[in-house]
């Protein structure tokens, strides 16, 4: 099973998105695990994630996060801000799945 890690400043707003993404995955019968953490906590989860998505408001940590995940060659990307604003679980799930291909 693939694990998607969402990261933002406090892991609050991304946790809203987690529910939406899980729902979208369920509807499409995709077996994934999605969780949200704060930037500070993220370094404790580097072994779990298969893909990392950042909230657009912390896009400035992209390079740092890429470096942190490089040892397992985990893709890291920033969530599209329109999808983030509308909490579009389906679109973000697709983004995550495409990155893992």
């Amino acid at each position: 099973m693939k694990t998607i890690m969402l990261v933002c400043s406090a892991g609050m707003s991304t946790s809203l998105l987690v529910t939406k993404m899980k729902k979208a995955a369920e509807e499409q019968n995709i077996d994934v695990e999605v969780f949200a953490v704060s930037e500070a906590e993220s370094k404790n989860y580097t072994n779990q994630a298969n893909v990392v998505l950042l909230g657009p408001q912390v896009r400035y940590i992209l390079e740092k996060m890429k470096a942190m995940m490089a040892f397992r060659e985990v893709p890291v990307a920033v969530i599209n801000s329109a999808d983030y604003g509308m909490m579009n679980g389906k679109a973000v799930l697709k983004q995550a799945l495409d990155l893992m291909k």
Partner: protein
Amino acid sequence: MKKIMAFLEKYFVPIAGRIGSQRHLVAIRDGFVVIMPIIMAGSFAVLINNLPIAPYQNLMTSMLGESWKSFGGQVWMGSFAVMSLLVNFTISYNVAKSYNSNAVAAGAVSLASLMAIMQPAAEAFAIPYQWTGAVGLFVSIFVALVSSEVFVRLLGNPRLVIKMPEGVPPAVAKSFAALFPSIITLSIFALLKVFTVLAGVTDIHALVNDIVQAPLLKLANSMGSALTIAFVNHLLWFFGLHGSNILEPVMQTVFMQTLDANISAFQAGAAIPNIVTKPFFDAFVYMGGSGTTITLIAAIYIASKRKQYRSLANMAAGPGLFNINEPVIFGMPIVLNPIFMIPFICVPVVTTIISYIALASGIVPKTVAMIPWTTPPIISGYLVTGGSVMGSLLQIVNLIIGIAIYMPFVLMAEKLDTEKATEEA
């Protein structure tokens, strides 16, 4: 307008991004994140002890005796009173961790270094609590950053590893790896202390406090500094960058100290000194999140007929009550939206001015408690002012003003969108 935006996008945004991901600033921020639950515990303990409700105070005294407040006092001793020691460890831990180095060892060495330069209390051989609280934060952070940098560098140096004869288990050799780096790091700080004493400075903490910290805090506790923080935070958010996250190191090092002074005064029953503190912003300005966006949601419910806005408001209202507003910021969107830029920056600036005046004039009590930033408005105003209804009232006034400022812009945006739609049709 376009030129200004292009200029800011080109120069301001990359700098802000670099600040937001700068190793040491991130370590300071993450270090404070770790101790925040402890600080909350201390803050609630002080609040419980000092709620200005006479029947409650009488009840507690009659039930538990005169000494019932000592429990809260002890919690304060373990939190606010030693904040500088706690955060010294967690910051150096995070610096070392960012280098993938031995984080726990770096934290321990850093705390040892801090104690090495601390001047014991004059009367007895004792830890000077005067400097272990928020007042000692500057020295504490400085030691954490410098000692962990030195320690991490030395730890990576192969020449400082003791060569063990063959046959010695590698784990034993490894256990000596931190020996020289620890000795050298601690010695640097011990020597610093020796030389400063020789130079006539007996107490480094007192020196830093007098020449840096005290003047800076005085400057911080002004309307100008409050407005600067409010303005920069929202300018960053306007470009879609997490303003409060980027400013967090400043908030914590400076505006936690102004709060700490307030809490100490509150405990002692003295006059509360500072207006501008961390909870000042959280409770009175960032209601519903940066941009006081809960008032934008309310303005949409009142004035907007547009389906898209109303469905966004429905989605954003729940998180908004807990001051989480990314759906509003990226959904409206407010980011790079020239219409909403004006109220998004104006509302917090205006509420900052009103709140500052309300607190300075004494109409509303000053902030004396740290609360989780997710505490809903109205409740948060009551709590941060040490249990004063005036705190909630000020929030209500600010909310009404926010709604009034946002409303015309919601109508304007709606009108422009309809015009655009008919043009396209």
